[in-house]
């Protein structure tokens, strides 16, 4: 078994910086033999989580930052993203697949994160999300 890969970065509220971190995390996962399908799901979930942190959490405030921590072993990737916003209650987010919400232009990010990761949990304050992805069988 190889050693765990670890990444800990702080980025400003800028989505292009978020994309760079995504690529770093995906490269580490690729190195650990995660499947293309795993990488697809994690990329999608990371995109949604980082945009949420920057846009909804930090409200695009250039004075606020997002901390991204990641630990990857041969079995799983654990990614923690924390913003400096006021947080939110995930149970307040309406179901985007309800008939009344189906044609709304936003509100699907959290659902996609949950669909593509093995688990997605928030801290009590709602400004930190922990996402876990177990490696799929080849």
């Amino acid at each position, binding site marked *: 078994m190889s050693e765990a890969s670890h990444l800990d970065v702080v980025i400003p509220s800028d*989505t*292009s910086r978020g*994309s760079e971190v995504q690529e770093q995390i995906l490269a580490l996962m690729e190195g650990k033999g995660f499947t293309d*399908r795993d990488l*697809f799901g994690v*990329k*999608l979930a990371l*995109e*949604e989580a980082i*945009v949420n942190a920057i*846009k909804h959490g930090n409200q695009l405030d250039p004075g606020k930052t997002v901390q991204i921590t990641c630990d990857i072993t041969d079995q799983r990737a654990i990614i923690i993203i924390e913003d400096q916003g006021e947080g939110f209650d995930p149970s307040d987010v309406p179901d*985007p*697949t309800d008939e009344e919400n*189906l*044609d*709304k*232009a*936003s*509100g*699907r*990010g959290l*659902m*996609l994160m949950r*669909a593509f990761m093995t688990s997605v949990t928030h801290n009590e304050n709602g400004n930190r999300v922990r996402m876990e992805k177990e490696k799929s069988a080849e």
Partner: protein
Amino acid sequence: MAAGQRKLDIDQIGDVTVARFVDKKILDENNIQIIGNQLFGLVEEDGRKRIILDFTNVEYLSSAALGKLITMDKKVKAAGGKLRLCSIRPDIYEVFAITRLNKLFDIQDDQDAAMAGF
């Protein structure tokens, strides 16, 4: 100039406009904003009413991109037109299925199927 980047390849086949996404990734707020504006321009500036969006090149797409597609669908319908989506790879189709947007959009397997009876 980023705002001047062409994000759609346009083909006119009879009275049907086929718009093929150029990028592999429809991610990042700025990028999605530009793509949205180019999509909306097809209806609002060019007055096109029968539009097929071809996803052949698209490997990734985020919820913000889905939002633009929903707004596009509304604009086309408001103009009395029709919008179809085609050539969506299985990974991406799953994103539509999870969010039930496969029920909202008219999605066809490929461009020929999208052209048929349009």
